[in-house]
C-alpha cells in the first residue's frame, strides 16, 4: 500500500515507505501497512508481525506430520503430531 503525503509544502503521491537517517549514520525504514489483513490466528504461534501499525503475536498452532513405512519410534515428534504409515 502507499500514501499521499505532504512534506514542507510539497505533496508526494503513492509513497510506500519513508527512509529517515538514524543518529548512528544508517537509515530507518517506515512502511505503510494499512492494507495488511493478517491477525493472530494466521500467524504461527511463537512468531509476531506488525499489522496496520500494531505488533500482533501469532496464535496459530503448528503440528508436524510425517510419513513412513514403519511404526513411529517413541522419541519421534511432539504431542499432537501425526504419523501416516503407508
Amino acid at each position, binding site marked *: 500500500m502507499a500514501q499521499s503525503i505532504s512534506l514542507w509544502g510539497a505533496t508526494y503521491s503513492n509513497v510506500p515507505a519513508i527512509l529517515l537517517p538514524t543518529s548512528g549514520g544508517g537509515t530507518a525504514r517506515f512502511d505503510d501497512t494499512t492494507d495488511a489483513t493478517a491477525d493472530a490466528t494466521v500467524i504461527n504461534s511463537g512468531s509476531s508481525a506488525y499489522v496496520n501499525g500494531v505488533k500482533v503475536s501469532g496464535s496459530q498452532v503448528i503440528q508436524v506430520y510425517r510419513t513412513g513405512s514403519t511404526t513411529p519410534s517413541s522419541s519421534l515428534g511432539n504431542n*499432537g503430531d501425526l*504419523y501416516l504409515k503407508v
Partner: protein
Amino acid sequence: MATIRLVPSTYAVSNSSYAKVTDASNMYHNTDNTTHATLQNTRNSTRNTYYVYIRGFNFDSVPSDAIVSSFTVKIKANESYMSTSSSYRPSLYHGTTAISNTTVTSSLSTSVTTLTFPTGSLTWDTIKGYGANFGIRVPMRRSSTSYSSYVYVYGAEIEVTYTVPVYHSVTITNSTSATVTASDSNPLEGTDVTIMSDTISGIAVTDNGTDVTSQFVHHSGTTGEYTIENRGSYGFALSDGYYVSQNKGVDKTAAVCRVSFVLPVASTVTFTYINYAEQGYDFGVFGNLDTELSTNYYSAGSSGATITDNSYKLACNTSTHNQSTTQTLTYSNVSAGEHYIDVKYSKDDASADNNDTLQFKVAITYNEAVSYYAYTITNIQADHAIIVSPSGGGGEQMYVKVNGAWVAVTAVYKKVNGSWVQQSNLSSLFNTSTKYVLRS
C-alpha cells in the same frame, strides 16, 4: 526358488594303514571340479576292502527356514584297477551305518563320471539331521593284488533346491462395533487369508484402499467348506464324490494332498475313506492337524513299509483299516482359524493289490451354528491393510502422495502424552484450528 550345491569338507578312512588319501582338498568341490584327490588301497598282500567316507557337507549354507523341494547327492570320480563289482559301489552313509537303497546303480569306471545316488525314502530333514555324520562311502577293493589301484575323486555335492518363505502382514483397523478377524495375520506369501465379519450392515471395508465391502459373502449354518491342493508328483482327483489317489500301479511313489479349511468356530472334521490296497505295503496316511507329511513314499522290507513321517494321525497299514468298505476318521474340536490336514497314499517298492488306492471325502461340522460374512484374499503377495469403518460417511480412506504417486495410508498415529496412539476415526483426526506441516 534357489539352488545351492553343498560340498564336503573332510573325510575318514576305515583303516589308516591301508586306506590312503592324497590331495584331499581337491575333492572338497562340487562336481564341476577338474582336479582330483587320490584314494588308494595300499595293501598288496590280500584283497581286503577298505573305505573312505567323504563327509562334512555344509548344511548350514541352506537358510534355516528354507522349504526344500528336492535334493540330489552326486560324486564325480573314476577308478584304476579297482574292483567294479556291484558289491563295491559308492553309497550313502550315516556315520558307518548304511542308508538303505542309496547305492549308485552304476559302478565307477576308468572314465571320469558323475554318479547320482538314489535317495530312496531319505528325506531332507533326515539327511540334514545327520549333519557332519552324513557322507558318501567309497569302497576300495583291488581288482588284483598285483595292481596298484586307485579311485580319483574330483568332487561331491548335495544339490539342494529350496525356497525361503516370505511372510506378509494383514492388519485390521476397525472403528465399528462389528467383530472382524483375519484367518492369519502373518500369512505365507502365496497363501489365502480370509477376513470374517459378524455383520456387513452399516460398515464399509477397504483392502489397501480398495472398497471390498461388496465382496463379502454370507455364510450360515453348521457345515464348513475346504479346499484340496495336490502336492508332489502325484495327487488326488475327485471321482464320484471321493478324492482318489492318482498313483495307482506306480511303485515307489506317494500321492499327497493338503486339505485346507478356515473355521469360524470350533468344529469337527470327519474323513470318510476307503483304504483297500496291498496291506502293510501300500496304504494311506492321514496327518496330524497342521502337520506336514513328506511327499516321499515309504520303502518296504519283508514285514511291510516303514513310515518315515515322524508324526501322523492314522496309518491304514493294518487289516483294521485296509477294507473295501468305508471307514471314518474324526478330528474333534478343531479350533477356530485356518488349518490343514495332509493326506498321503504311499506305494512301496513293488506290487499292488485290491483297489490300490486311498479314497476319501471330508465333512466339516461346526460345533455351533454360525452366521458370518467372509472376504478372501487369494494368493497373497503383499501386506494388506483392512480398514473397517462405518458406512455412509465414515468410510474414508486417507492417501498421501509419495514420489509422485498416491499411496493408501494403512495406519495413522497421533502422539498423545508422549506416546504414539493409532487412530481409528479419520474424520476427527485433524484439529481444524491447527496448521499441519510436513517434516521428513
